């Protein structure tokens, strides 16, 4: 990236040139990538707390054997909506928020390519979330089939399922619009001199993620539409009595569902690739192989869906193919981990909160990767399929993977977003509470799974009691520490600790080198030249 002097002068006045609406109208009608990014991030945090409350209700019920607080039907609704809310309401919108804030700033663009469509992408997400969460209050209660929505179970349930399907449709439309916007922005609006292989890795990972979204969202939309017609219009896509096959839903769902995992994790790779070099004060090791590894992971993600279905009774050839393909993903993922560690090697490291969360990400995401490798081995998967081992595995990937990277990114860019420094001591406290709470909550779930405790059960046999109690205690520590995070962000916005234009010694992308803190309302009116 270029190392020209920060362009203060040119920004300070132009922020006042164009009056923009204030108050409610500003947020409703905004086409500014920063406003939309902010909306996405706050929305995602609200959904994160909503889904978190559901998780804590689940853990409260599982604190002891027996039914204490919930009835089984409501318990199933909670596990279902918790999953949907966290995937579609919390993690994905958070990454879109990052994309909106950062992509134009990192490639030297004035805004996103389609600002009006950008506004639409966000405002579609809100009614979808309302549909999803309010389905708890309709007759029959929220969808209670697990977030995978497998038929025929889902066919038995009430109006809430139709609301969920509609919500998924709307969210898919929003994601596709967002992806088109991101791809167009990246391919067309880069500053002069910024070739693809000079783009920051966060931009690269989002480019690949956007293609994944465009490839799989229509598949999900198709599968839930088939559910809808099975429910109401007499079709039999998934009903054997009419010539259909319930297994077909699984194939279609997981053809979407496995790339979806990488949609949630690839932007995290980008964020970590920005933070580790900044705090090691050393360039990222193996930039090119990082790009190739990301692309390989994305491509492989399309041919491994069957590993979610080893127990449906597929033929040996199918089991072997999906086992080998799944194991292969460990290779590019390993390359990424090695590259990050090589970046740290012989650096000059400091350990501010973003770096702590990045190191937490590395270690814990690797544990999730290893348990993923264990699950890839078909015979082993069969003995722990749909047990708590799987629950532990994907929470290691999605919480200590995606979510910790989101935290790292928020702390890293808060000075640029708000113009203020967050409280470092509180940030570190948030990290340690999160990392301890998370591990106490989810590590024991590996043991529960190995001992044979199925997931999605409201009550359990007595030999599972001890680890469940430990897990619930961890979940409460982890859950309540997130209120501290809320406080830290609000305190940062209101504080008077002015952030430097580049508060991090080692950060070298355009938003740090060419923009003041806070970044002005309109970013680059004249594109910077990248050498």
């Amino acid at each position: 990236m270029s190392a020209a002097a920060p362009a203060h002068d040119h920004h300070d006045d132009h922020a006042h040139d164009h009056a923009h609406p204030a108050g409610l109208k500003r947020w409703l009608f905004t086409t500014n990538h920063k406003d939309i990014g902010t909306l996405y991030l706050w929305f995602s945090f609200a959904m994160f707390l909503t889904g978190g409350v559901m998780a804590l209700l689940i853990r409260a019920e599982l604190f002891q054997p027996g039914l204490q607080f919930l009835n089984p039907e409501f318990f199933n609704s909670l596990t279902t909506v918790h999953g949907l809310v966290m995937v579609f309401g919390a993690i994905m919108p958070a990454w879109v928020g990052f994309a909106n804030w950062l992509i134009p700033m990192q490639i030297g663009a004035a805004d996103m390519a389609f600002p009006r469509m950008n506004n639409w992408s966000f405002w579609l997400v809100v009614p979808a979330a309302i549909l999803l969460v309010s389905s708890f209050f309709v007759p029959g209660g929220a969808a209670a089939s697990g977030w995978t929505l497998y038929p025929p179970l889902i066919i038995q349930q009430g109006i809430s399922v139709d609301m969920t399907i509609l919500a998924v449709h709307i969210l898919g439309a929003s994601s596709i619009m967002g992806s088109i916007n991101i791809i167009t922005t990246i391919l067309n609006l880069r500053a002069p001199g910024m070739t693809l292989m000079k783009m920051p890795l966060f931009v690269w990972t989002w480019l690949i993620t956007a293609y994944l979204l465009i490839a799989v969202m229509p598949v999900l939309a198709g599968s839930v539409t088939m559910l809808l017609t099975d429910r109401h219009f007499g079709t039999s896509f998934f009903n054997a009595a009419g010539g259909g096959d319930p297994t077909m839903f699984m194939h279609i769902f997981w053809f979407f569902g496995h790339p979806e995992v990488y949609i949630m994790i690839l932007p995290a790779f980008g964020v970590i690739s920005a933070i580790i070099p900044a705090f090691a004060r050393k360039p990222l090791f193996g930039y090119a192989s990082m790009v190739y590894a990301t692309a390989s992971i994305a491509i492989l993600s399309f041919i491994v869906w069957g590993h979610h279905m080893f127990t449906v009774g597929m033929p040996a050839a199918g089991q072997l193919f999906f086992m080998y393909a799944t194991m292969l993903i460990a290779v590019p993922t390993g390359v990424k981990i090695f590259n990050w560690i090589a970046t740290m090697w012989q650096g000059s490291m400091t350990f501010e909160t973003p770096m702590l969360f990045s190191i937490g990400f590395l270690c814990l995401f690797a544990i999730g990767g290893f348990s993923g490798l264990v699950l890839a081995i078909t015979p082993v998967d069969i003995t722990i399929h749909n047990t708590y081992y799987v629950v532990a595995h994907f929470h290691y990937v999605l919480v200590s993977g995606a979510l910790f990277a989101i935290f790292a990114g928020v702390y890293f860019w808060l000075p640029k977003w708000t113009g203020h420094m967050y409280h470092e001591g509180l940030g570190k406290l948030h990290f340690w509470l999160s990392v301890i709470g998370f591990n106490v909550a989810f590590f024991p779930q590996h043991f529960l799974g190995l001992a044979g405790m199925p997931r999605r059960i409201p009550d359990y046999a007595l030999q599972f009691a001890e680890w469940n109690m430990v897990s619930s205690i961890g979940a409460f520590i982890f859950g309540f520490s997130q209120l501290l995070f809320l406080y830290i962000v609000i305190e940062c916005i209101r504080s008077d600790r002015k952030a430097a234009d580049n508060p991090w010694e080692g950060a070298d992308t355009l938003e740090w080198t060419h923009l003041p803190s806070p970044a002005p309302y309109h970013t680059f009116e004249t594109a910077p030249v990248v050498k």
Partner: protein
Amino acid sequence: MLRNTFRNAVLSAALATAATANAAYDVDILPPASPIARQIYDLHWAILWVCVAIFVLVFGAMFYSVFKHRKAAGAKAAQFHENTTVEIIWTVIPFLILIGMAYPATKTVLEMKDASNPDLTIKVTAYQWAWEYDYLQDGVKFNSLLATPRSQIEEWEKKGDKKNADYLLEVNNPMVVPVGKKVRLLITSNDVIHGWYVPQLGVNQYGIPGFVKDTWFTADKPGRYRGQCSQICGKEHGYMPIVVIAKTPDEYAAWVKEQKAKMPQAEAAHAAVAAAAVPADDPNKKWTADELKANGEKVFAANCVACHQVTGKGLPPAFPPLDGSKVVTGPKAAQLALVLHGKPNTAMASFARLSDSELASVITYTRNAWGNKTGEAIQPAEVKAARK
């Protein structure tokens, strides 16, 4: 070693926060009881140790760097940022490790999928929420349901039964198999997808409505192996345990004889030709209203209580009340049709699998229990007629 260290660390932490009696902090797969399960067990530990070794090596290097190369210790940053040789090496080595893992796993997969030449075949049909076992050669067929009393589960009602050791893992009729014989399972489902999961035997297989999938196991030694439904199947998903008892072949033969004696003659003859779609009993027998009600209460407790509750109040709106229901107090033909055919797109399945007498009893019971006072009885012959 590592296992124990970790176990002790977590154990003491857990005890400090929540002292519980009879702690069972298991950290391992349950002891395998079949050849396949033993292979799975060994595979799991082999792969886990490889993962642990890689983790220690890689993150050992990272923590060394974190400790040595920190700014606070005066480290100056080097500026290297790529090295093709190193990058190729750490692509190839993991690939070779994966091949090493895939080889034994492949052998196990091929063995698991080979269900040929069984000594015994049992057809397993999953229902919301019971398992039906049909011994195709031996002509034995029965349902297997959760045996834990609901009073132990529903603590919110403070019924206060003490939980027994096999809480939620006990059934009324366990599957019984002979030790050392290859048992082939044909698994299907009547309503939604369920999962027949007994980890110690190395079996976890979905039952998918409309399809029959097979798997197999051989129990090594006599014993009692427990499992649960592994795929979410609605509200009673947590209450669908599986118990397999492995007996010596002689004991098994005795058990089959005993089971056959218990079954109605006609049923045994019927099952022998393996076409027992409808359990036969004596549909021409005339029952008194009181007999029907008394028997119906038992049938209700075994088949209906999970959704409609002992009180008949149900769990509305998903599971409607029977007490005061228009269907139950209206014309009996309509109720009979609903019970026989189920209600599409709801959890109300067809109960045609119950015998004519069972259906007659349970319908009579519901029409006269709680606040329902129709005073009507329905005879098995009427059920038999309605089946056609």
